[in-house]
């Protein structure tokens, strides 16, 4: 069947083009496995409930790992996604933008044309970002600092005296 033949040819091309990448991926997995295996062989295993608990910088872990996020993250992610789609278009552009032959043939006009075109493209979406910014979609809800009326009875000079005495 032609379809499977083509797949095999494609596989062959990929295997040739990505042989080194594949080797790196394989090497990464192997290294990790070997290192972890060595650690497993060498280390003593004496678990206790204290050790098995989640490490939180010495604090007792409380609550669940699955909590609701702030909704603001969603808007940020959405804007990020749109700029990422834009980024995908930059790849093919990047391969022809600096083409020396084309630049030479057009006395450099090609480079100016290509970069203008791309700036227009980016600028259109940047407008959207400006809009979202102006409308306050990017504003984060800040926690309010409450000023207390507490008046300390110890005067500030007392601290200075102590600092001097023990310095």
């Amino acid at each position, binding site marked *: 069947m032609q*379809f499977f033949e083509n797949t095999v040819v494609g596989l062959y091309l990929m295997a040739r083009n990505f042989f080194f990448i594949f080797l790196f991926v394989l090497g990464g997995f192997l290294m990790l496995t070997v290192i972890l295996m060595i650690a497993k062989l060498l280390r003593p295993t004496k678990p206790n409930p204290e050790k098995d608990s989640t490490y939180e910088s010495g604090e007792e872990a409380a609550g669940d790992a*699955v909590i*609701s996020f702030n909704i603001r993250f*969603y808007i940020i*992610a959405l804007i990020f996604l749109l700029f990422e789609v*834009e980024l*995908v278009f930059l790849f093919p552009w990047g391969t022809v933008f600096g083409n020396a032959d084309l630049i030479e043939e057009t006395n450099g006009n090609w480079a100016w044309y*290509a970069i203008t*075109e791309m700036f227009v*493209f980016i600028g259109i979406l940047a407008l959207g970002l400006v809009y979202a910014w102006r409308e306050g979609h990017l504003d984060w809800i800040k926690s309010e600092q409450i000023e207390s009326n507490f008046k300390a009875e110890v005067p500030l000079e007392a601290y200075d005296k102590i600092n001097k005495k023990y310095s």
Partner: protein
Amino acid sequence: MEDWMNQLDWAWLQWLALGIFGFGAVGGALYLFFTKNILYGAYGLLTSLISVGGLFLMNGAEFLAVSQIMVYVGGILILIMFGIMLSAKGEKKEDALKVVNVNSLVSLLFAAVMAGGLIFYSVKMGGSRSLAEPSAEQVQDLGMSLMTTQVLVLELVGVLLLIVLIGASYIAKK
């Protein structure tokens, strides 16, 4: 390409890669279908999407593979995960991420029809496709046409993205 590389037997590598990616794509999707925890389902989707990217790569569509990884894995999946984490609420803690399949049969049927159609057309189109050229030039050709004959389309895509950005942030604000 160096000489010694020509002498290697590539067949095992080809089939190994096809096996890994194919298994990942199908396995991830099946896991997504059967799992009871929506967050784990998202991980299944992650596996599936990355594997599909790998399959694109194997068929010489490098640009498509990069787009797949960037947009679907790096963007849309993150968005889905945020959506899950934003809306994770339940009576009990354990219920927060629980999913219930209500239309298994219909969705399976739909998937089967889609898969059948895709296989039919790819087998049909398979004969006319040529893979002789490695795809380094494909991206260049794409960039060339984006900058010359299709430049209006490029800017229109920019406008479309702008509209989506404004609309999405407006709805999300509400």
